[in-house]
């Protein structure tokens, strides 16, 4: 039962989001360097951290799929990666907005974290055409899991490599804020992080429940020997 616990989870997510937004705008102090612009970080960074953990989770689910051969783990892996990619879009757009506000350019190559994230995003974006190109469902699920494991191993390595490519000792604005982050900012940041984590989990559960419901309908159809409707996705794994 995928929907079990979805309601309390979503309530918790909403509550946490409301709390963090309030903290961001009514409680957290203004940053000395960046001023009001710094507030973007409370949405940008938690989204990024959650997305990255989500990608790694997708890899973990993939390992479980490969070892157990239970298709449900493939569904978990797919949805985890899918939601994280959507979060990734938000990370990149909010990152660009922050860059424009801070540096006057929509993109800067000087922020290693943002650049690393772009590379990771580009890799996971290939997950969809990759799945699409493999027609046999069993093989598709297996290969997708191999992809997810490989990509999951890639994430930390990539961040390390990009960070090392930073030649200038460039005072990264978030680092300056992070280094001497006052308690109020840290609290706000942590609340935002928890909120995004809850949101991610809620959306993953939501998506899995929807898939499960579709799967149950198909199951009903088959039990009644009724024609199975068209419109089943070539890539999204079925849940039943």
């Amino acid at each position, binding site marked *: 039962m995928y929907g079990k616990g979805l309601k309390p989870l979503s309530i918790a997510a909403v509550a946490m989001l409301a709390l963090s937004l309030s903290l961001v705008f009514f409680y957290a102090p203004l940053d000395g360097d960046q001023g009001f612009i710094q507030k973007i970080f409370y949405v940008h960074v938690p989204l990024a951290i959650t997305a990255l953990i989500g990608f790694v989770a997708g890899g973990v689910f993939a390992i479980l799929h490969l070892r157990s051969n239970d298709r449900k783990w493939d569904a978990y892996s797919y949805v985890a990666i899918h939601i994280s990619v959507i979060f990734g879009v938000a990370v990149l757009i909010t990152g660009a907005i922050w860059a424009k506000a801070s540096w006057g350019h929509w993109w800067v190559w000087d922020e290693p974290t943002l650049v690393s994230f772009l590379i990771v995003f580009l890799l996971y974006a290939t997950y969809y*055409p*990759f799945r699409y190109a493999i027609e046999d469902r069993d093989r598709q699920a297996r290969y997708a899991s191999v992809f997810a494991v490989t990509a999951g191993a890639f994430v930390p390595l990539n961040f390390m490599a990009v960070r090392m490519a930073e030649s200038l000792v460039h005072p990264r604005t978030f680092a300056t804020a992070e280094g001497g982050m006052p308690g109020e900012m840290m609290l706000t940041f942590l609340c935002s992080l928890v909120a995004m984590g809850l949101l991610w989990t809620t959306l993953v559960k939501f998506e899995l429940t929807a898939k499960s419901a579709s799967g149950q309908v198909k199951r009903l159809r088959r039990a009644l020997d009724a024609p199975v409707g068209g419109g089943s996705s070539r890539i999204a794994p079925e849940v039943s």
Partner: protein
Amino acid sequence: MTPSRTAFAAILAKDLRSELRTLQSLPAMALFAVTTFVVFRFGLDRTSLSGSLASGVLWATLLFAAVLGINRLFVSEREEGGFDAIRLAPIDRTVLFAAKATALVVYLAALELVTVPIFAIFFLEDAAGLGPLVAVLLLTNVGLAATGTLISSMAVNSRARDLLVPLVLLPLSIPLMIAATGATEPLLSLGGPSYDRFDTWLMVLGLYDLIFGLVGYAVFDFLLED
């Protein structure tokens, strides 16, 4: 149970032999690389390169040539039904991974043996940096081979095989390229080679090779199940 080493040697020998016989991808890869150098000469409007430009041109070209050639690795295997034979044989599937990856390292080394001297002739003022470059080339080859073997052995069973390998392999190779160019840039600098962070970059390459070698080793079994 056939000892793994014999199986490894056999598959490796078969691969290299078939490559020599058909002479398929290696000359094509080399030609592609050299032509790309010419394109860069005009694209950048430079007749000599050093430092970061030299490093970038060399590695971008090698990467694209490699990605083009990697596809060929499993093509003949599939066409000749080699996969089925291996599946039936009582050997550890990961031996296939090791053999394929090693063959790919050899191909890449052969490619570099041809193209790097030509690159030096075309663009470099002095060849002093080429010696230590060998270490960088070798470590990068291993990394490319590990991920390349992994991706191409999946792509061979797909519809858009020729598109899939470059698409997925390129982002995966970025850390390799970062480290390789990072090490190469000081080697090819105007005043003679310098070894700024050379050992650090080599370690990054080694780490990449280790991680993806292990990943390939761990998951390859699952790719041949059918």
